[in-house]
């Protein structure tokens, strides 16, 4: 006898909990591996999962076992040339089993590295752990302009498209039962009486006729209760709930003047990508605005932003003005969380820097949640840095850091967004 059970549909991901625990348990090692992987790979595929190497010995589960040495006799199959009493040299190293060695698997040898793959979610989780979006204030509910329609039970009025058939028919059935109840009760009595009458002759014809008439009458009355009434109709009710805004716009501002070479642009790109991924984890919807500038600013698409080359001087304020205009025009602060990241090599036309400060203070900083500036230069700072430095003191949501090379990106990013305990 046997019972067949199809389990294919249930119990998916039963091991997820154990897997999570495994990852939590080796968080230290995994994080290290993630950070290393970060430096190693191209930023464009950061959004994938990651292979993680952990030294196998770190996660071994020890048991009491025999070590090498002592005297042991092992049986092996496949003898070709040996006869009893033969002596053979002890094979060197444990690899490959060999003839001697006994049970190599018992002596605790194994792979040197334990490699496994983190899913994209897990990878990003590790990657951004302990990081926090500064000033992550969801746009105030009061200002909310977005609504979400949610179910809210049933109502007795509504439009025909929303009729809930089951509900309505349930109501109708209850009403029918209630309204017909007096008749059906009497009907049962009359029927019982009639049956009694007919069962015991002599039959009282007159009474029987009366009863038959009454039964007929009652049936008609019961039938007359309408099957469904407008009164029964029920409509699914939906109400609109104001939704806090969960959309963000990210401004990427980059200097593309002659002094920004390919390598520097690449660094900037990495930084922007990180920021983008990070925002993506916090907001449902993200728009990215790319603004590049030399002496004049231009809003471009991603491809052009990173790959086309321009030369010329540098006027940073042009980009800032453009950003302020775009914010005013397209991204009202009531419904958008605005983040800005600016990358530059620090070059600016000398007289422009005070103007930059002015624009930031007046038109940009009041609207953005966070403004980060990275300067990609191994050299000493120029006027822009100094001006920005003054801003830093008075605006907590303005941050600036310097990046020397690819290895700095991740630490600087972490530093900018690390969870503040205050």
């Amino acid at each position: 006898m046997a019972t067949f059970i199809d389990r294919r549909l249930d119990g998916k991901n039963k091991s997820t909990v154990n897997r999570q625990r495994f990852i939590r348990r080796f968080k230290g090692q995994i994080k290290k591996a993630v950070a290393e992987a970060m430096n190693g790979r191209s930023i464009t595929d950061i959004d994938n999962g990651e292979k993680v190497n952990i030294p196998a010995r770190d996660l071994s589960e020890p048991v009491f076992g025999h070590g090498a040495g002592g005297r042991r006799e092992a049986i092996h199959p496949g003898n070709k040339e040996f006869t009893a009493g033969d002596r053979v040299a002890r094979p060197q190293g444990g690899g490959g089993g060999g003839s001697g060695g006994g049970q190599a698997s018992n002596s605790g040898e194994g792979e040197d590295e334990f490699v496994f793959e983190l899913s994209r979610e897990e990878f990003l989780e590790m990657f951004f752990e302990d990081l926090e979006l500064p000033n992550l204030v969801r746009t105030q509910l009061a200002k909310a302009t977005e609504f979400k329609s949610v179910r809210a039970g049933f109502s007795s009025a509504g439009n025909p498209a929303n009729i809930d058939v089951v509900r309505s028919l349930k109501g109708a059935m209850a009403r029918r039962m209630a309204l017909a109840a007096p008749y059906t009760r009497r009907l049962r009595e009359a029927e019982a009486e009639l049956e009694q009458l007919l069962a015991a002759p002599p039959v009282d014809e007159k009474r029987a006729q009366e009863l038959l008439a009454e039964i007929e009458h009652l049936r008609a009355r019961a039938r007359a209760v309408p099957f469904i009434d407008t009164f029964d109709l029920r409509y699914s009710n939906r109400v609109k709930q104001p939704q806090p805004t969960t959309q963000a716009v990210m401004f990427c501002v980059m200097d593309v003047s002659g002094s920004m070479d390919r390598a520097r642009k690449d660094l900037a790109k990495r930084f922007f990508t990180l920021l983008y991924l990070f925002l993506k984890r916090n907001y449902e919807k993200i728009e990215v605005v790319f603004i590049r500038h030399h002496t004049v600013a231009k809003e471009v698409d991603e491809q052009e932003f990173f790959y086309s080359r321009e030369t010329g001087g540098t006027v940073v304020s042009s980009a800032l003005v453009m950003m302020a205009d775009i914010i005013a025009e397209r991204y009202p602060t009531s419904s958008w969380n605005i983040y800005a990241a600016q990358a530059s090599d620090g070059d600016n036309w000398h007289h422009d820097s005070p103007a930059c400060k002015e624009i930031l203070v007046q038109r940009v900083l009041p609207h953005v949640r966070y403004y980060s500036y990275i300067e990609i230069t191994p050299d000493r700072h120029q006027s822009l840095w100094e001006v920005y430095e003054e801003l830093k003191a008075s605006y907590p949501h303005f941050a600036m850091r310097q990046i020397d090379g690819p290895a700095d990106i991740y630490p600087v990013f972490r530093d900018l967004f690390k969870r503040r305990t205050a």
Partner: protein
Amino acid sequence: MSQSSRLITESSEWTFPMLERYNTVIGQIAAEEFQLDTYPNQIEIITAEQMMDAYSSVGMPLGYKHWSYGKQFVMTEKNYRRGQMGLAYEIVINSDPCIAYLMEENTAMMQALVIAHAAYGHNSFFKGNYLFRTWTSADAIIDYLLFARNYVAECEERHGEETVELFLDSCHALMNYGVDRYKHPAPLSLSEEKQRQHEREEYLQSQINDLWRTVPMRNVEAAAVESRRFPAEPQENLLYFIEKNAPLLEPWQRELVRIVRKIAQYFYPQRQTQVMNEGWATFWHYTLLNRLYEEGYVNDGFMIEFLQSHTSVIQQLPFDHPYYSGINPYALGFAMMCDIKRICEAPTAEDRHWFPDIAGQDWIKTLDFAMRNFKDESFIAQYLSPKVMRDFKLFAVLDDDAQDELEITAIHDDPGYRRLRLALADQYNLGSREPNIQVWNVAYRKDRSLTLRHTRYNRRPLHAESTQEMLKHLHRLWGFAVRLEAVDENGKVELVGECPSGRH
């Protein structure tokens, strides 16, 4: 009925009605022709992922949560994805009803093979073998695992996941030392377990405290106590000893030790009957499917596919093959089972000399007896025939660190048979495979330290690195210093390690 109308299918895709058909036919042949006594079967179709799940929780259908199962899962998944490893075609659980998992990816032939192998082969072994009968309660295991899982979850809620996990780590490390090798266990029952648990918690705590009582005794008595060892006899079941005697454990920790111990006990027979169990199941799937073919239930295509799969299962690589990894239990077990049948049916003069008791007997009864009353070690010692040793070309290698070279001590020839057989049996003896470590003494009048003794066998030392780790685990459970001594064949005792180290 004509031959062709009996044919169950020509398709390689399986369907549920087809599986039922296979199961009915196989079950009928198994029970009526070969008298296999089985638990009722519960055959479950699962996906590859679910198979990996089952795999990583060592085949327990509902395990408690622990990171090591996650690790196992990650490892299995990785190997599977890379194609380094095919999944097991089946997992079968020693329970009543006997649960067998079939993977949906299998072909119709594989499903039939697995039904024969697991649902009738393993199943009858679980029901018949004396170790399983003594040590496991097939009808209660699912309930007990459920109890364990809920209990662990409850502990995690009360004491924190990490605390519980670390504690379980230590218990797992000692899992192999959590079995009673000789004493019979009481049968498990969920309700009793639950009911007893509360009483046990309170009562035990008071007992243990009594052991550590500091009320002074009279001098004479004290001196007598001083010289007496506790425990009076060495204890082999380390987890049991810890559960009952570790001074600092909370009641819930004792319960966890107990759970791990019970589960270890449940798997103990499996570790001792690998060759027999797999050999038995392989022998039966081979025999049953061949009968199916003879009866016309399956066609030539089926048999070719089956034999291909079967031969790869029972393949035995020679020792000098790059992928050699020891003796294949399927191969050895299958060969021995077939050999017993051969000895019964067509004994040679050699067989009559070696096995006068079974030569020419009824093979079904003989095999049944062998299955019921042996474990790997004794089964090999009893039934390994010269023919099988010759077929496998077995030879014995002595590796003695006192000698520069390895010595071939015996090969598959007349003078070597007995030595080979003994040595191979010993290779499956858990007692010699695992270091013999027992509780020797608790210094309960002094620093409460626990002393274990490793009795060396053939001068084989412990694996140094893992031993240090193990002492840490023991220390976590015991709560006071733990010391490990080794005793050599001459009775000389030396200290191997202690935790925390550096104290005397």
